[in-house]
């Protein structure tokens, strides 16, 4: 466990954007029988998701969220010194999407801008990078954009992933201030499990070809996908998560000497309801302290933690000081836990695009 600690830096405003198209999971039956679909949906507790249309990218969702955030907070665009875009569904393989967003958002050319490529654990990693850079006194305000269009990544004909994922983008404004107090991060990586969740083709190890685009039956259950679509070995991921995540949370609470009752809200990566309720039960947490959006937005990868904060904690976090524990885990495997103060955080209503 790498432990990172920061003083007096935090999130002062947040906004989120979801596509307007709602997928009703019980009716997502073009490739599977209603009975099969019902069983899967009941188990994972994901009833609705949002799908971006063919023209909409992660960056568009983040752009809409950022515009809302800038408008509501009244922040001047030239006050932004740092722009980080985190996603595994960028606009192009190059250049970095953050650079394109510098121009679209009308930010100054002296802005520090770069992308981070991480999945479900990404929001925690991105925050830790930004908090680190914000130790530089010449950087005053940072904009963190985190977006995913996972609906475009997985095959609708592979029941192991077809019902899980949705699209969304968030924007968070990060500033220094004594009100934020201490923040702690535990960040972890295990590349021996890189094959649990992966897109095999389309990178430089297995470049795009007719072969990587060929649909085929991949298992004894008749699931179908091509090699440029993601796969997930669900039972191995589950097994990994139920062991490592409670351990990491307990360790961070121990090292920081924070009692689990002194955390106001626990925000978990929204993987699926089965995993999330199992972790909460295992850690003996108070379910009233665990906001959830899994039923309406599904698994939006790195966006699920901040999206859940924006969607469920808007009133609770404005004009107050709350301690949140964030926990996220996924593709890599990469996982982490963070304990942060939210002090007078301005949270915008969710934008639909």
């Amino acid at each position, binding site marked *: 466990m790498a432990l990172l600690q920061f003083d007096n830096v935090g999130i002062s405003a947040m906004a989120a954007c979801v596509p307007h198209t709602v997928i009703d999971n019980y009716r997502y039956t073009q490739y599977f029988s209603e009975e099969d679909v019902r*069983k*899967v949906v009941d*188990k994972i507790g994901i009833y609705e998701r949002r799908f971006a249309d063919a023209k909409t990218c992660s960056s568009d969702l983040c752009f809409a969220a950022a515009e809302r955030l800038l408008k509501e907070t009244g922040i001047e665009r030239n006050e932004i010194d740092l722009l980080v875009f985190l996603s595994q569904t960028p606009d192009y393989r190059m250049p970095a999407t953050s650079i394109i967003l510098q121009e679209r958002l009308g930010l100054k050319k002296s802005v520090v801008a770069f992308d981070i490529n991480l999945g479900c654990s990404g929001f925690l990693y991105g925050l830790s990078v930004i908090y680190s850079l914000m130790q530089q006194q010449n950087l005053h305000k940072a904009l963190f954009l985190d977006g995913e269009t996972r609906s475009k990544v997985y095959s609708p004909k592979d029941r*192991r992933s077809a019902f899980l994922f949705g699209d969304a983008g968030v924007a968070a404004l990060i500033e220094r201030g004594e009100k934020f107090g201490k923040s702690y991060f535990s960040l972890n990586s295990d590349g021996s499990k890189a094959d649990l969740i992966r897109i095999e083709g389309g990178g430089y190890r297995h470049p795009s070809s007719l072969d990587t685009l060929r649909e085929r039956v991949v298992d004894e*259950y008749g699931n179908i996908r091509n090699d440029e679509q993601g796969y997930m*070995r*669900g*039972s*191995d991921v*589950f*097994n990994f998560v*139920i*062991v490592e995540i409670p351990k990491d949370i307990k360790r961070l609470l121990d090292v920081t000497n924070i009692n689990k009752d002194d955390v106001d809200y626990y925000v978990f990566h929204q993987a699926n309801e*089965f995993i999330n309720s*199992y972790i909460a039960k*295992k850690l003996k947490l108070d379910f009233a302290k665990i906001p959830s959006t899994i039923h309406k937005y599904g698994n939006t990868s790195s966006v699920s933690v901040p999206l859940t904060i924006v969607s469920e904690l808007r009133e609770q976090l404005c004009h107050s000081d709350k301690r949140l524990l964030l926990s996220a885990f996924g593709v890599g495997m990469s996982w982490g836990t963070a304990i942060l103060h939210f002090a007078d955080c301005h949270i915008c209503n969710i934008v639909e695009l």
Partner: protein
Amino acid sequence: MNLQDFVEKFAEQFDETDANEIQANTVFKDLDEWSSLIALSVIAMVDEEYEVALKGDDIRNASTIEDLYNVVKAKH
């Protein structure tokens, strides 16, 4: 841990299958209701009851419930 107990807890993970159909020598992947979703419940049950981390391969390589019991017992 004992086998009978394990078989009962294994059977509790099924909603539709009659518990009498689930015995130590049952080839569980032949049960109509068996699916990768039930596998998740079995992994959760084994973690909760025996504090053993069951891998996907442990389940794939096991044929009967007793095979799986032996894997759990060896790791217990």
